[in-house]
């Protein structure tokens, strides 16, 4: 089921300081929106707030998924409703292999744990997708992203290069099949080949799942591969201007200085 993400006049404080100052944005199924802005404009605050990071305090406004507010929901509940955040800085989790993590996450998303609990199934792996079934699925996805299978035995993001981390994020997206995906600076740390592979992966998933996409980026670079219908300029905690794809090209050519002059912020 396709879903619409609606951000309404969102105001957010971090450690007492207001960072988001009334953000309004709607992402409908199948749409691609690019949110572009200079460093320090609050782009990452927006992505973390959407996902429910406890550090970010929503003081006003709302986040709705298909008309239902997400504000009271924990990050895992938001994820299970179909929200996905590809992080700019994925943390490493030593001791937990990528495979174990993917299987646990995919199982949680698909309700295996719930089913096991409901049936009173106490067996060790009752809350997980059967190993053979999941192994086939993950192998298929990992080869699409041109990642080596040995990745699965490595600890999650531990010692991954920047590009490897971003690929692993998209691998997670492919397996968790979100309805709304937020890509937070996914292009940073990617060389041109990796950028192409990751973008193809995202585009393919969008077609397959009909998901809405919010691409947060500093540069136009990624937008040469993932084509947004809508480009928004994010500045000082707000969306100050929205237009079509030509806006991305203008930002690339002219930088952000004109934004301040033109929009008086």
């Amino acid at each position, binding site marked *: 089921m396709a879903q619409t993400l609606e951000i309404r006049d969102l105001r957010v404080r971090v450690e007492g300081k207001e960072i988001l100052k009334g953000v309004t944005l709607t992402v409908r199924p199948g749409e691609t929106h690019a949110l572009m802005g200079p460093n320090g404009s609050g782009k990452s605050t927006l992505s973390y707030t959407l*996902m*429910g*990071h*406890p550090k970010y305090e929503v003081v006003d406004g709302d986040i709705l998924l298909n008309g239902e507010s997400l504000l009271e929901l*924990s*990050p*895992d509940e*938001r*994820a*299970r409703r179909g929200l*996905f*955040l590809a*992080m700019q800085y*994925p*943390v490493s*989790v*030593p*001791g*937990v292999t990528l495979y*174990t*993590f993917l299987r*646990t*996450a995919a199982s*949680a*998303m698909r309700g295996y*744990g719930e089913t096991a609990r409901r049936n009173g199934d106490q067996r*060790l792996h009752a809350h997980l997708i059967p190993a053979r079934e999941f192994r086939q699925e993950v192998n298929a996805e990992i080869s699409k992203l041109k990642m080596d299978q040995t990745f699965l035995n490595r*600890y999650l993001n531990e010692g991954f290069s920047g590009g490897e981390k971003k690929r692993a994020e998209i691998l*997670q997206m492919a397996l*968790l099949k979100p309805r709304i995906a937020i890509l937070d600076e996914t292009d940073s740390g990617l060389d041109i080949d990796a950028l192409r592979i990751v973008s193809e992966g995202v585009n393919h998933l969008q077609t397959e799942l009909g998901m809405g996409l919010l691409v947060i980026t500093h540069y136009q670079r990624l937008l040469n591969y993932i084509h947004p219908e809508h480009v928004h300029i994010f500045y000082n905690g707000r969306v100050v201007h929205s237009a079509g794809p030509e806006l991305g090209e203008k930002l690339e050519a002219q930088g952000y200085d004109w934004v301040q002059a033109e929009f008086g912020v």
Partner: protein
Amino acid sequence: MGKLDQRNNGYGPNGNGGAAREEMLTLEVNAAAVEALSDYYDEPAWMRAARRDAWALYERMDWPHTKEEAWRRLPLARYPLANRQIAVAPKPLHALRALPACWLSPLAPQTQVSGIVVHQNGAVVYQDIEAQVAKQGIVVMDLHAALRTHGDLIRQYWMQGSITRPDFNKFTALNAALWHGGTFVYVPEGARTLRPLQAMVGYDDQGSTGLHHTLIVVEKGARLTLIQDRRSLEFLPELSSEIVEIYADEGAWVRYASLQHWGEQRHSVSVQNARLARDAHLLWVNVALGGQITKDFLRTDLLAPGARGVMQGLAFATREQIIDQSTYQLHQAPDTHSDLLFRNVLRDQAKTVFYGMIRVDPGAQGTQGYQANNNLLLGKARAHAIPGLEIAANDVRCSHGATVSRLDEEQLFYLQARGIARYDAEQLLVQGFLRPIIERVPLACMRDGLDEEIAQRFRGPSASAQ
């Protein structure tokens, strides 16, 4: 050793491979018990003399005092030391299937091990070894019986360690004087087992003191993997004083996985000492999960150049449990290498103590010694970490470090953002924290079993039965 059947150790599956006698023996802890045990097991004169000497020491020595650094944080007053009894209850050897399920289920399947010895209440109830392995002279067997088959060898090594000595403390004196029930593992020069050997030490009778003694001798160039597990079931506070001696000769390769699953009311002291000759390698994995109060002395002595010892430990203490471990890495010779990693998880009101020491003797140049202790706190538990270095040589590379931390909120957020509920995310992180140690345990089935136990301990209730 006589002729060997396909799968037994020269003792028929229905015979008694353990005690020399079959009657039950119950003794007070006193001088008469020394003679009674020696009579009962029909021991050689040297062992009787060793027991007598140890008893004299036991009578002279005081129980350790909290003024001693190693005992400072342990409530020894709670140990049931007074009016101890010992009991030997031999049983005929059973089929493996006939063992209590709680001890049988943690054993690796027989096809995955080369030999096994199972003790119940100080007597062997099951023992078996592959013919191919036995042919090389390798044994894993009852120590009492081994006094008859390998007496001279045992005498040569008996309590020759730096801490596995009768006079180390009153607990070792007690074990030396009144030990009953023992594991003997011997791998002769150049011999090797492809699959691990396995030993189980179990108690389910009441009012009896556990005084198990393990002697492991691995000769020149030989290779051994041993898994030794401990289980018990008790209704009243019980006491164990255990000794483990490991001797690895030149170029020997030893992997020793030591698992502790004592029951909820067991108060234990163990003194375990590995002694490594030239170019000998040791990987020692210590898993402490059970017991009411546990005090372990774990020491590796690197006696000659090229010796290399890796010590890894995990403990998961819950509720009122106390797990207190003193580790020691002795570099006595140049070009020796030691590496220690102990990780503890604590929840509820549990307490752990890690007291670690790297000692580099004068002249032990070119030494590398590392020590790390990491503690993960869940709940109101307390972790004490006291790492130490004593270095008397100048060309060494040594480091030590200790951390006490809680679960990382950024990691939890990341896992939750992928749909994993917080409680499940916490469990993943706890299992991940202990994973580097679990990975060093031999056999996938043992690793899976430990993973499951850790999950259960994490998920288990804090106030009711474990």
